[in-house]
């Protein structure tokens, strides 16, 4: 085909290739329609897929802080019971509804009691047992320790020293005697 255009002016080439251009435009148009049709077919599938976009990891990130009363010592994310499976599904549903982690935990506390949370809210008995008492306990321990330490460091009371009897200075000079007496008194103190 390229040989056809040899020595033919550009305007003539354009005129000669008009049909070819039209065909190309039609092809492009068909491609666009095809793309649009494909989009229309795939779009609902995409929307449908978004109905359950919550992954197990997202569910377990919340579930690990919840303990089902049926199996008290096992966190919800690893508990194999049917009850816990239902609770995990409930978390999935609530996450899909757009609820935050805190909102979900609050719901579980309200519905099943504060005891189902690994980190119970700071209120009521939880506040006293888990926060106030440990602090009081530590304070009491520190005070007791300080008190014992002080008792160990305190020196035993010394017995009153027996008065030392020294011969009174007698130099014969009353002034000097007086001076020596004062010095002895000060040293004695």
């Amino acid at each position, binding site marked *: 085909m390229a040989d056809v255009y040899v020595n033919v002016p550009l305007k003539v080439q354009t005129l000669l290739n008009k049909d070819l251009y039209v065909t190309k435009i039609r092809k492009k148009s068909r491609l666009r329609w095809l793309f649009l049709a494909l989009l229309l077919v795939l779009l609902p599938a995409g929307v449908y897929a978004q109905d359950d976009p919550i992954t197990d990891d997202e569910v377990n990130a919340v579930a690990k802080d919840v303990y089902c009363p049926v199996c008290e010592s096992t966190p919800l994310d690893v508990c194999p019971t049917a*009850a816990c499976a239902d609770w995990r599904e409930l978390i999935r549903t609530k996450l899909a509804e757009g609820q935050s982690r805190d909102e979900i935990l609050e719901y579980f506390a*309200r519905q099943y009691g504060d005891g189902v949370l690994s980190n119970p809210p700071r209120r009521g008995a939880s506040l006293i047992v888990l926060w106030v008492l440990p602090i009081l306990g530590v304070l*009491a321990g520190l005070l007791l320790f300080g008190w014992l330490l002080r008792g160990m460091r305190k020196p035993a009371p010394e017995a009153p020293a027996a008065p030392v009897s020294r011969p009174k200075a007698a130099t014969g000079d009353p002034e000097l005697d007086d001076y020596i007496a004062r010095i002895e008194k000060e040293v004695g103190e």
Partner: protein
Amino acid sequence: MNETLQTTPTPAEKAPRRGIRWSMVLLWAAMLAILAVLAWGLINTTAARPEVGQVAPDFGVEFFDGYEWDTLPVANLSDMRGKPVVLNFWASWCVECRYETDTLEQAWLKYRDDGVVFLGVAYADVEPNSIAYMKEFGVSFPHAPDLGTDISQEYEITGVPETFFIDKDGVIRHVQIGAVDQQMLDTLIPQMLAD
């Protein structure tokens, strides 16, 4: 002649007054608080579950939508005093509960006109699942969720299903761990009605 009375200070008065050692007060207060809570915890853990012959602990319930007792959406067990009560703990995830639900519904239909109260309490259950379960079995007697698991804790249930038969005076007459059957219901309910 004016005489001035002079009082001689006693040795105790002569002694220098020691200030309050606040650190010691705090220490003892902390010790007492810790001991009090430990005692409280000990009492709670050793609290026995309500047994046959004891008065059933009172509680309040808020029934599921569409369920009521005596046209009331909320009720206390004490409101039902004077009527025998069959208190049944169940859950939608509980397989054994499925064996007794229809039996309980049939017994409710049989004895409700005699004034017997049937009360279902859904334990650790997800509300939509509870509702679906009740629809599946066509349950019509009053049902409520165990909010905060307060009721199951109060009754110290060992699991589900578990059923407490409470007489007109509010005294527990029988505790059934596991599913109830028709024969049991037909024996115990007439006894409670007769008393």
